[in-house]
């Protein structure tokens, strides 16, 4: 007999309580963040059904790790979803459909006399955004579309907040340069973009 090994285990009551807590935590996390994860996936993929697959797989991982769900789960969930989506997005066909969808979504928000200007801005934006490298695009998506601050976005990418700020600064500068080159006019933005300079980090 090995003296160091204690064959006793925690009481079954303790285990059940722990597991119940984890399960409730998962359910609460799911209800609070499913829409955000699904939207996150749609923003990176071509179609809703593929995005639903990504969201389901993301929460499947969360279910298996439900005892480890952090207090602020969204960056953690985005980190998982980003990698699942990256796998889905490798297909060139999906990428092409994403570009088409981006164009459609942008144009569907405009009507009347604003349409021409909106279409012009859309074309300019599509060209400028497409001219960036994928890592630059992702940095911008995390902040402008996913609404993360620099600390949270850094956690998603697995880098330091300082490193993320540097990457964001470069990506913003490069996007601005490409927007200008593409003839993009500032216009009015329908939603207010977050200012990472004011974010905690």
């Amino acid at each position, binding site marked *: 007999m090995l003296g160091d090994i204690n064959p006793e285990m925690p009481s079954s009551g303790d285990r059940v309580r722990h597991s119940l807590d984890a399960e409730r935590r998962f359910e609460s996390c799911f209800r609070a963040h499913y829409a955000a994860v699904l939207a996150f996936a749609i923003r990176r993929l071509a179609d809703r059904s593929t995005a639903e697959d990504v969201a389901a797989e993301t929460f499947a991982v969360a279910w*298996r790790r439900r005892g480890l769900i952090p207090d602020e789960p969204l960056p953690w969930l985005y980190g998982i979803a980003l990698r699942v989506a990256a796998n889905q997005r490798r297909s060139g066909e999906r990428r092409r459909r994403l570009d088409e969808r981006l164009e459609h979504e942008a144009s569907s928000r405009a009507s009347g006399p604003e349409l021409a200007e909106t279409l012009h801005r859309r074309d300019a934006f599509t060209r400028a955004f497409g001219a960036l490298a994928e890592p630059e695009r992702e940095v911008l998506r995390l902040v402008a579309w996913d609404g993360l601050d620099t600390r949270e976005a850094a956690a998603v990418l697995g880098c330091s907040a300082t490193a993320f700020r540097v990457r964001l600064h470069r990506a913003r500068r490069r996007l601005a340069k490409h927007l200008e080159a593409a003839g993009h006019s500032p216009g009015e933005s329908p939603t207010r973009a977050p200012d990472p300079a004011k974010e905690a980090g």
Partner: protein
Amino acid sequence: MSRKRRKIDPLAAMAAANPAPTAELAASLADAELERAMSRAVALGRTPSQPVPVGDRAALETGTGRGPRRAALGLAAVAVLAALLVAGSWLRGGGGTHPEFAAAAVRVAEANPRLLVTAAGWKITRADEFEIDSGELTFSDGSHRFDVHWYPARSYEQYLRDRATVSDPERGSLLGQTATTVEYTPEEYATMLSPQGSVFVEVRGQLGSRAAYVGILDSLRAVDVDTWLAAMPASTVRPEARSEAVDQLVQGMPLPPGFDAGALKSGASIADESTLAVKVGNAIACGWVESWIAARAAGDRAAAERAVEAMADSSDWPLVRKAEVPWFGNYEIVARQLRVGKLDRSDLSYEVRADGRTFVFGPAWRLTLGCEGTSRHEVDGLPATP
């Protein structure tokens, strides 16, 4: 007079082009859609293998990027340790006459790689179920965990390929076997040992550091049958006690038409009592859903209604109330589907990229309930997701 040129705000341009604002999407999601999505996610979480991005299973699970790294675990040190450990086969020299254990338990124990963590303060905290060629044990010191898995030897090469996507594998030796170690994160490592007999072992620990992980590898010992069985948690149901335990679990339960407990009693395995409760509960729940499907097909409304009522009462089933296993919450998901007549029968398929093969595990309700044939031990040749 010159007009000052307005500066382009790239983030504002980005925000204006957002193809799917979260608030809009959240407002459009119906409750039923949310329930269905949750049911699907739970079912997926139960499946044997994830369609993970090649090369990043760990990042998938931890939500952190893997980043460039070289696994330099210091397996040279581990190789030295191996000389101190029980060299050679864990299958050899069962030792002892083990008078206090029944023959069936001994048969399972003799076939298994009987590895124990012997570091001070560590004990087995989970021994869900194991059979002759597969099983897993979880050790804990109260704040960290260390898992020992064993799988059929025929799956070794597939696991090797799968784990090689985690990080650059480092080879050494441990317990007289070739040891392949990968780094999930700087806090978490896994080591696979080459097959011995009909099984191979994989250990995995999230211990906070490489040094702590090596320390636990250092304390692994192959032990004799008596020592191994004696180290099992008190809640372990041994094969000789299984039949009686199943009878007790079934007592007072509403049993579906044609239910046969015989198959549940005959398993030659060692199981934790809560794992056995889940198996019995799942078999009953799956039986009720099957009877509901058959009744609907035959137009037998009374029989369909009996199934709906039985599942609707699942939270009051004696087994559920007694065992209080969180998994039983999934019965309510399926019960709701039966109540509204919309059972989720969709197939869930996965592409296992190592071999480029696709496996279909559906329908979804069977995965949600954990019906026979949907657990990872029952799906041949798939790397398990820890």
